[in-house]
């Protein structure tokens, strides 16, 4: 009976994966039919998430999900299948509900191997025909490698990306290593403070995608081909564009996205502070320009501290404003506020130095350049000279002043 249920479940898994194959992992907002969108979302979430515990957490917390895809690997590494089934079924449907689907991982691996063999054969056949000269040979070799990777990656997009991408492509392997290095060695307990434990337990998952993937996203939200990094909260998934080719810039982009996640975990996306005479904090919510400015500032400082100076500064006005704030309140106080959302200390110091209500006024600004102008005027009014600050490499590279 169990065998039958699993066979049925596997059929369903194939259907879901077929949907996932047909459309991008970024859900196409319109005009995809609702059912299809939901299936894709389920497949996307399931195959993209890195571990069984996280899949379970997502499944149990989201009533709109009706299926969950596990791989054999999940069970080798972690929980017992029966325990998972019991936990999920009891919570959602009653113990007999057929909610488990086992993805056909062996089949997927076989397919990858076939692709590899085919590609190697094609490379060998082409080589014989194209031996016309040294430079032509070199050129065709690169093209063949590109073709091979393109055909393999096309397939891999709808399977568990990390495992297979790392298996085939050294570029992806190096990015995955980079992602781990940053989350383990750079975003340490000392750096992250109280957020570190949760961050270490569920580090973000990284994929490198080509322009076509980012274009689909940009089409959905209306941007002109200029996104290079994405962080999806519900799947804890970072996407980096393969167009960010220089290692230092790639490290900066990955660090930037990981910091978004760390801050998200700690509550840093919602700014609040305690005022004298009040028991509950005053909430300011998500102040985008400040959050991005501080994310970029901390990413820039981290990559530079580890010897990888990036070639550019994103969000120049926002980052410069963040830097000025850091000079006023100190590194530790600002980082703690950024990671937890508790800006009480930052607010107190800024208001003490620049006048009551200054911090609140800053938060009401719509963009970084407005905040920067306001801050510069305030600093000038009390006689603080920013010329030394402006010599800082991040401020000068930002070019906002």
């Amino acid at each position, binding site marked *: 009976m169990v065998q039958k249920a699993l066979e049925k479940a596997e059929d369903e898994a194939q259907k879901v994966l077929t949907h996932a194959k047909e459309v991008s992992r970024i*859900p196409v*907002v*319109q005009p995809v039919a609702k059912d299809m969108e939901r299936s894709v979302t389920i497949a996307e979430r399931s195959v993209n998430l890195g571990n069984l515990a996280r899949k379970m957490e997502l499944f149990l917390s989201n009533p709109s999900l009706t299926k969950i895809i596990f791989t054999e690997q999940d069970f080798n590494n972690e929980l017992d299948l029966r325990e998972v089934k019991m936990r999920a079924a009891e919570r959602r449907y009653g113990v007999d509900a057929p909610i488990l689907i086992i993805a056909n991982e062996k089949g997927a691996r076989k397919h990858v191997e076939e692709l590899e063999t085919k590609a190697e054969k094609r490379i060998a056949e082409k080589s014989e025909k194209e031996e016309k000269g040294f430079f032509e040979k070199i050129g065709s070799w690169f093209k063949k490698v590109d073709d091979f990777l393109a055909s393999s990656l096309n397939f891999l997009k709808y399977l568990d990306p990390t495992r297979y991408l790392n298996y085939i492509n050294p570029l992806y392997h190096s990015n995955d290593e980079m992602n781990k290095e940053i989350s383990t060695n750079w975003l340490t307990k000392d750096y992250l403070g109280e957020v570190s434990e949760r961050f270490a337990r569920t580090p973000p998952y990284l994929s490198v995608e080509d322009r076509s993937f980012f274009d689909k*996203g940009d089409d*959905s*939200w*209306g*941007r*002109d081909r*200029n*996104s*290079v*990094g*994405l*962080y*999806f*909260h*519900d799947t804890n998934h970072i996407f980096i564009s393969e167009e960010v080719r220089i290692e230092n810039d790639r490290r900066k*982009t990955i660090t*930037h*996205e990981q910091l*978004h996640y760390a801050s998200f975990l700690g509550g840093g996306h919602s700014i609040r502070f305690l005022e004298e005479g009040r028991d509950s904090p005053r909430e300011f919510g998500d102040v*985008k*320009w400040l959050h*991005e400015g501080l994310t970029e500032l901390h990413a820039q400082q981290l990559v530079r501290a580890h010897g990888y100076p990036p070639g550019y500064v*994103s*969000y*120049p*006005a*926002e980052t410069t404003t963040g830097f000025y704030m850091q000079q006023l309140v100190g590194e530790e106080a600002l980082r703690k506020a950024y990671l937890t959302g508790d800006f009480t200390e930052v607010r107190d110091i800024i208001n003490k130095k620049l006048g009551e209500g200054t911090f609140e006024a800053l938060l009401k600004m*719509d*963009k*970084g*350049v*407005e905040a*920067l*102008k306001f801050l*510069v005027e305030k600093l000038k009014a009390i006689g603080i000279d920013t010329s030394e600050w402006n010599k800082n490499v991040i401020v000068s590279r930002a*070019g*906002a*002043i």
Partner: protein
Amino acid sequence: MSLIELMKTKEYKDADKKVKDWKERLSKANNSEVMKVKDEKLAFFSEMRKSNQDLYSIFEINDKELSELIYEKLTGKKVIID
């Protein structure tokens, strides 16, 4: 011209007005209105990015903010777009 000086220009003031208008419309928009805002802001910021990169660097934060809002309105999901 520094970014702060750019704030004095007519282009800045016009763009700022548009951003405020889009935010206001998005706050109470249905799906088709969201799509309209999406198309308008795509056309506007694409042109700005080509013609005046410094000005775009000021408004990039608003472009991103509106994009995230549009995506959340249409899918119910949060994303950070950089």
